[in-house]
């Protein structure tokens, strides 16, 4: 099994979100970048397939050279090699096209991605990639087993879960559950040392016109101060929720 794990490079969850250039660009000043949390879950699952089933694991990012430390981190966690497609990732469709090229050239049969990136929250790359390649696709995946060519996948549905049977080649949009939080891998010293020697190749993008373009950003309006209600007068809360907020 040849696994490709798609890694997006996103601001750490505690980052302050600000914009520059007349609110057209995300302000990266003082921001720490990390592997997208959903991608960490699927990368850890890939390590399991590597150790238990002898799979090879390649990680890929579409982005510029500033993203390389994030790919190195994925190598330190245990991926065998990394590929960076040298292009700005501004449109989900564009990214999916680039990833499709990487999949075709590398003959990958299991593609693991996250359910969404926590920066742009597109939730589109894995599905579009599957659509372009005409591979099977399961989104919001919370469990994955592969036996030869067949896969058993659990996906989250509204109010529960559903078990599915399908075949490779397969694209997964994964989330917590595919592995548990406590099992997430973090790089250790040995991993970090080894990662320096692992191959990271840079490939040029194929041409494709972006389908969308970000115009500007804005922050939600600042909200008013909290109304405090005395703990001995909870009836007042009910009154406010009924008459003022009109939600009960």
């Amino acid at each position: 099994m040849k696994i490709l794990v798609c890694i997006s490079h996103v601001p750490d969850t505690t980052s302050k979100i600000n914009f520059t250039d007349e609110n057209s660009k995300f302000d990266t000043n003082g921001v720490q970048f990390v592997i997208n949390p959903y991608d960490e879950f699927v990368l850890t699952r890939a390590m399991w397939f590597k150790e238990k089933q002898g799979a090879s694991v390649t990680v890929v990012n579409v982005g510029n050279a500033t993203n390389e430390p994030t790919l190195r981190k994925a190598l330190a966690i245990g991926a065998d090699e990394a590929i960076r497609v040298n292009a700005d990732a501004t449109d989900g469709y564009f990214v999916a096209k680039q990833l499709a090229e990487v999949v075709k050239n590398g003959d990958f049969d299991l593609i693991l991605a996250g359910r969404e990136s926590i920066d742009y929250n597109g939730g589109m790359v894995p599905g579009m990639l599957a659509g372009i390649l005409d591979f099977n696709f399961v989104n919001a995946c919370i469990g994955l087993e592969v036996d030869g060519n067949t896969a058993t996948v659990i996906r989250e549905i509204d109010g529960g879960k559903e078990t599915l049977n399908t075949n490779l080649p397969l694209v997964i949009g994964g989330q917590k559950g595919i592995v548990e939080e406590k099992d997430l891998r973090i790089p250790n010293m040995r991993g970090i040392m080894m990662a320096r020697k692992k191959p990271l190749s840079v490939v040029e993008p194929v041409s494709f016109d972006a389908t969308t373009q970000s115009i500007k950003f804005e922050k939600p309006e600042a909200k008013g101060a909290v109304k405090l209600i005395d703990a001995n007068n909870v009836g007042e809360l009910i009154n406010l929720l009924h008459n003022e907020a009109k939600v009960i």
Partner: protein
Amino acid sequence: MSVLVYAESSEGKFKKIAFETVSYGKKVAELLETSLSVVTINANNVSSLSDYGAQKIITVNNDKLNTFNAKAYADVLKQVAEKESANIVIIDSSNNGLYLAPLLAVNLEAGYASNVVEAPSSISPFTVKRKAFSNKAFNTTEIKTDKKVIGLAKNSFGLVENKSTATEETFSPTLTDGDFNINSTSVDKAKGKITIADADIVVSGGRGLKGPENWGMIEELADVLGAATACSKPVSDLGWRPHSEHVGQTGKPVASNLYIAIGISGAIQHLAGINSSKVKVVINNDPEAPFFKAADYGIVGDAFEVVPKLIEKLKEFKAQNT
């Protein structure tokens, strides 16, 4: 040219989200001075969609489509979009909607904007406002392609009644074997429980509740309010509550009308997931808890005293108001 909405149903029934998507579609059709077609798959009582502005209702009935299948559904929607010459297709943000929309976008070679919260701010260029940075910001995006897929964020547009007369017709899609390469073998759904995705009200508990044995009052409060129950991340990590209840940036997003947080500190990652809820209430014994900065209403107090009182008062309120 027309606008096409997919109105999702479950076991034949529409959920509120279907009517919200139709309401939104009507608004987009008005902006484009065109008509609104709505497609349904194996749904009953489809004429109810005309209450929200559907002018043409296309029903697809096919036993093979009884269980949701993203690829097959995306193929059906593509065929309907082509038949209707629809340049804009609007999909909801349920788990199923999020699953099929990117497949449909590729089928149609359409640009796709997800998490959209408002009617287009401009038609030419075509721009929409969407949520980004886990609800910490909004992003205005231009969709540059001729054909467009819009994913509407839940509870962002609301229901807008707009009674119209609708024509109804059936459509028989062409399905291929390739549409059914993924097979559902079992579905495990909590029966009779309100889910976070559907709920108008969500009652959520954090580590301040000390242990799983104290969730009785949370469930009772949810019961009185007709609410879904939720929890913070450590609560599900500790196994006090199932993962499906974990809300926040790395859990489920909540876009309810009312969110009540009990014994939750209000960490940035928690707030990111619940920002889209309209009204937020916090109950916490620490007046310095960050949640008080994010909430609309707050009670500083011990949950073990406040919540039982709240339940009692709510029962009185319900008795008078129903």
